[in-house]
């Protein structure tokens, strides 16, 4: 009996062993990394406090509040909309762990799509996590997926009809939070998270909102500030300020016929002034070489150098230094600071004054870890 079924037994044992090893590895993605907000933190709530419909789900996430107690405007900083974009999450964490607000209020959501931090994208070969050395020791951060975990929202439709525009996208995008705004209360989990964020923006009367992203170097919308057409002057003011600091950002108007994105729908459905920023991340690109933690953090990839030399594509990649994490986080934080400065010029009655954030040169010199707490 055993002899006859030997191959079946061997295959079953191998498969079960591999399954257990993989399960342990994936199980670790359900343990969130601890964050250490700065002393300026005045409150912490859950996103479900703004919309009950996500309470008890993996879509619920922490919302950190820095309230100066001085009347002014309100800002919202969102990282981790796509948890495979390391600098998106890390930028929000660095802001969270260093920020002081002296006028107005700042809300920070570091893990915007919390569910997407608990899985990775099949067939992409991404590492599950990466580590950043800090003054206090090494900290581990998860590298998640672009979309909501299918364990939380499944199955995908063949075609995703975006609500309420009815724009058609591939079914996979139904789990992409940055295609799901303004969301809906009775929608799928991703739409409900998007709805909760819009509720927060409205209830807290957010004046300016940031959605921090990263993109493949070969995509044209990279190293950009995407703005809603109603707020061009704020974007241009910031881009000029960044230019003077030696940082080049391209202005990009939010396309009117491409729906579900934060820069389009936050602008259309709320009174917030939305901005989306993208840095160039070679570890996300389709032309990338070996996919590992080094590529995520050092951002150096010979393939992009070669691709750029072909002249076939417009590629946002610095051949000499690559696109290291310090550069990407530094750009995002500089972008947030300059956009708030520019906003303050145009809306002097609703000032938001923030302090203690490291500038681009400091981050480049000392590394991201220098600005992480423990």
């Amino acid at each position: 009996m055993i002899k006859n079924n030997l191959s079946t037994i061997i295959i079953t044992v191998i498969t079960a062993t591999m399954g257990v090893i993989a399960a342990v590895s994936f199980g670790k993605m359900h343990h969130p990394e601890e964050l250490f907000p700065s002393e300026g933190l005045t409150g912490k709530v859950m996103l479900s406090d703004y919309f009950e419909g996500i309470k008890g789900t993996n879509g619920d996430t922490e919302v950190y509040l820095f309230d100066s107690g001085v009347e002014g405007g309100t800002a919202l900083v969102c990282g981790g909309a796509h948890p495979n974009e390391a600098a998106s999450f890390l930028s929000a964490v660095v802001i969270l762990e260093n920020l002081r607000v002296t006028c107005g209020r700042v809300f920070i959501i570091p893990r915007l799509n919390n569910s997407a931090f608990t899985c990775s994208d099949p067939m992409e070969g991404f590492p599950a996590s990466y580590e950043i050395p800090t003054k206090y020791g090494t900290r581990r951060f998860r590298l998640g997926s672009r979309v909501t975990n299918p364990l939380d929202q499944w199955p995908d439709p063949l075609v995703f009809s975006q609500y309420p525009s009815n724009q058609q996208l591939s079914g996979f995008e139904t789990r992409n939070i940055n295609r799901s705004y303004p969301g809906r209360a009775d929608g799928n989990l991703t739409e409900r998270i998007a709805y909760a964020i819009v509720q927060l923006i409205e209830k807290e009367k957010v004046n300016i909102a940031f959605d921090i992203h990263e993109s493949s170097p070969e995509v044209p919308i990279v190293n950009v500030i995407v703005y809603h057409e109603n707020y061009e002057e704020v974007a241009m003011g910031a881009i000029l300020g960044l230019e003077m600091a030696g940082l080049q950002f391209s202005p990009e108007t939010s396309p009117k016929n491409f729906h579900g994105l934060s820069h389009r729908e936050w602008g259309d459905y709320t009174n917030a002034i939305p901005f989306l920023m993208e840095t160039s991340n070679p570890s996300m690109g389709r032309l990338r070489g070996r996919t590992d933690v080094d590529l995520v953090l050092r951002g150096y990839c010979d393939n992009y150098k070669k691709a750029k030399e072909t002249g076939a594509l417009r590629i946002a990649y610095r051949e000499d230094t690559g696109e290291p994490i310090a550069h990407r986080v530094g750009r995002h934080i500089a972008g947030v600071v300059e956009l708030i400065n520019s906003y303050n010029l145009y809306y002097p009655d609703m000032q938001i004054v923030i302090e203690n954030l490291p500038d681009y040169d400091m981050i480049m010199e000392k590394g991201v870890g220098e600005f992480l707490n423990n």
Partner: protein
Amino acid sequence: MSIELIIFICMLATFALSIFLFKMPAGVSLMLAAVVGALIGGQGFPVRHLVEGGFGFLEAILIISTAMIFMRVMQETGALAGVSRGILRLFYRQPTLLIIVITLFVMFPGMLTGLSSTCILTTGALVAPILINIGMQRLAVGALIAMAAVFGEVAPPISIPVMIIGGGVDMPYIGFGLPLLLVSLPPALITALYFRFRYLPDYNVAKVKVYLDSTDGEKYGFKLYIPIIFVILYMIGEIRFHEFVPHLGVPLIFIIGTILGLLTRRGVKLIDVSRTALRSAMPVMAILVGVGMFLQILALTGVRGYLAVTALGLPEGIRYLAAGLMPFMGSAYGSASIIGVPLVYVFIGKSTLVVTAVLVLMAALGDLMPPPALLCAYSSQIIEEPNHFRILKKCIIPMAISMAIGLLILVFAQEIANLIL
């Protein structure tokens, strides 16, 4: 020679040795190739990546398993034979028209769902008996169905590879109707005519009439066809009327169809039918697990990027060859995502809509190509041919014609766009 090229050659060699020398199943060969690629790429035995890749096509595996059970039940109830006879009865006097109608009929589910596999597993399975019974060689039948499935995946209104490329370049799925029709319909018609005149030259109306009369068996009326009508209408409804039709997902639709099928005729044994169906679908499902692992290791070791950069690095004059290489990526979705997205930028200056449509045709042809040769593998299940590469061989000429049409449209993309858009 770069390490990525060495890894890729070793993976292909492992696959070829395993399948041709050691006579291992294609799915297992792909898994072995993935393991060898990981080892040579210095990744050791990356259990997490192999398991993650293996789950990459979980949805497709669920669709295939439920669709195969559904089709087996339809076969047992007599619905398949009924539909075959119906189509044949309508068009048997005009064989050329019959083959064209059959090709369009096979394309139909793919046009609505964007999935090539559904073409083979639903309408493909319905028409295969017709084609075999009117005298077309089995292998040619498998090849015609596989080719039609490719065109169904490309044709409007729903083309998922376009959406994948669109997602990569931030382009909404708007205005693709005519360009997709342009790149799918002419090659489909030419393919239909090719199979008509190459593999059905001695069509004899009288013989077919005799066959028709001899197969008029027991009639169960309209209720026999309710499951098929339900499955097709629900899939359309989910996409076109999503606000009113609850989203069930394709596997659940097939399961409901199966239950309806069991209610339409007594005596069909679900356990036996399911066992037979899953046993026949097992090689295809194993291929999908293997392909997922293979693609994961290609990405992990950098081979995927190496292939894409190599395609981009082709000299200016022969850059169109990069598009011509797309089918050789072996998967429509993989090819659309990996090479399709960069190529849209390469051809900036020409109509993006027409360029994308051509790239999607090229990518979709990849579903026929090894290592996975998915559509050939599905098709081989339908015509009960153990070696699916024999189907691929029959597809070579229509594939070449389709690629030539695609490249021609690509060269004149802007001029064509000026005419039709």
